[in-house]
């Protein structure tokens, strides 16, 4: 089968996968956000290389005294328009992510995902232990109350 000349796309796919790997594998939140912006920039490269026309100039009309020169080969302007949006979405997500990382660093004392997950797990464990302990106490006290023969309705 004849392989189309698509090595450009393969190079972009490799960059995308490096970015995706950093997002999934690295525990540090700031490093993850860097991987995320890497991933988004390479998706932008995929779009732009899709719109490329060999020999075509940038999608700006070449004007000969006021009128566009006829029969000029332009690259496809539509992916460029779409990618202006994607770049802005990327920077917006990175800014919100970085703000969250700063808040997490202040609340937890660490910006590493495994440390934060560990602290969360301990917090939930402590809450469950407290609940169990409180339930045991209330059973004991209600048992003593029942034992003491006070038959009236137990109010909160």
């Amino acid at each position, binding site marked *: 089968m004849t392989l*189309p000349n698509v090595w450009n796309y393969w190079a972009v796919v490799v960059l995308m996968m490096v970015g995706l790997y950093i997002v999934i*594998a690295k525990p540090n939140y700031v490093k993850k956000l860097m991987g995320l912006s890497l991933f988004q920039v390479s998706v*932008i490269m995929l779009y732009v290389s*899709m719109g490329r026309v060999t020999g075509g*100039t940038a999608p700006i009309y070449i004007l000969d005294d006021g009128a566009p020169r006829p029969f000029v080969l332009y690259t496809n302007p539509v992916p460029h*328009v779409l990618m202006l949006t994607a770049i802005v979405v990327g920077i917006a997500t990175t800014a919100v992510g970085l703000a969250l990382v700063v808040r997490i660093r202040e609340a937890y004392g660490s910006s590493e995902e495994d440390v934060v997950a560990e602290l969360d797990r301990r917090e939930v464990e402590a809450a469950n232990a407290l609940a169990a302990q409180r339930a045991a106490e209330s059973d004991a006290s209600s048992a003593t109350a029942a034992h003491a023969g006070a038959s009236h309705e137990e109010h909160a």
Partner: protein
Amino acid sequence: METAITVVLFVLLLATAIILGRQRNLFAASMLTGIFSLVSAGLFTVMEAVDVAFTEAAVGAGISTVLMLATLSLTEDVEAREKKISWPALAVVVLTGGALIYGTLDMPNFGDPHAVVHGEIARYYIDRSWDEIGLPNMVTSILASYRGSDTFGELGVVFVAGTSVLLLLGGRRSELPASGESPGHERPSSRPPGKRHAHVREMPVVRTVAKVMLPYIVLFAFYVQAHGDFGPGGGFQAGVILATAFILFGLVFGPQELVRHVPPERLERIMAVGLMIYGGVGVVAMLLGGQFLAYGVFTPSHPSHGHHYGIFMVELGVGITVSAVMIIIYATFATRRPSLAPQVVLDAEDRCETEVSADDVPLVPEERALRSGADLLAEGAAGTDAASEVPS
């Protein structure tokens, strides 16, 4: 010649991405993100995508690097864990990459002019946008008029980003003079107490040069805003460059000075005004009988003039909101009072976490190894500049 430059740039990009992945010193990593954006913008230029290169350079190399560095000054600047391959991540990556490569097998050749993608609407825009709208830069005419609602949504995303950063970090701004509950308390900077640095006042060169250059950068931003119709440029790029000028001011003269000159309360209103201008232009078109954002209705006699007015107003709204949001985001990050919470480092066996306060001198051995390890990495072995490796 073009494929040669493309190959070199792709190699540079891949090298930067891999070094970025392995680099544990996050300052170096954020510098590498800046380089990655610059080189990718170079690649877009070679691939004739000039507007995209413009925005990627201004946003990627400019704003996002500065934001990451500002975040790192508020959090740790060294990644904790050493480098080890995580197999589940590799599996997901290989799976996704394989699917994408499988997808490229049926794609048309790179740069093939007869591909389907250049047929339909792209052919229409290239042939007709000069007669219908009359702007030399096709990208701006598509961006603002044909697909105007996309840009309206995009401006909404920028507005949400500004609102989010204000909601998340707007609270604890460090007041102007060094007040706050513990004026004496030193920020637990990782630098040893002995090595205080010269205050910025002692760097007159940078201050005067910044004062000289700032007006020209602002002038350049307005040029880019107006030039958007004829060449690469437009509302987004102009807004980002204008914000870069204010960020430069904030970098050189200090964030308090920036907040004093450009109070965030007023910026928040300006942020909202830009989006309302964009929406307002659309609503006026509706009131005049057309659909939302139908600029042709403004001048029924010859619609292309209506498009000129509409696109100019819309780009103005975009420029206002984008610059206000970028300045707000930078000011919020830079004036955020660093938390005094000690850094929590989990013991290797994850049994107990050692509450390590970064500013008590006797650092935990493992922490010191980590710290000096990073310095060693940064300062380089072979004892060169040994004096500069200050005992932390």
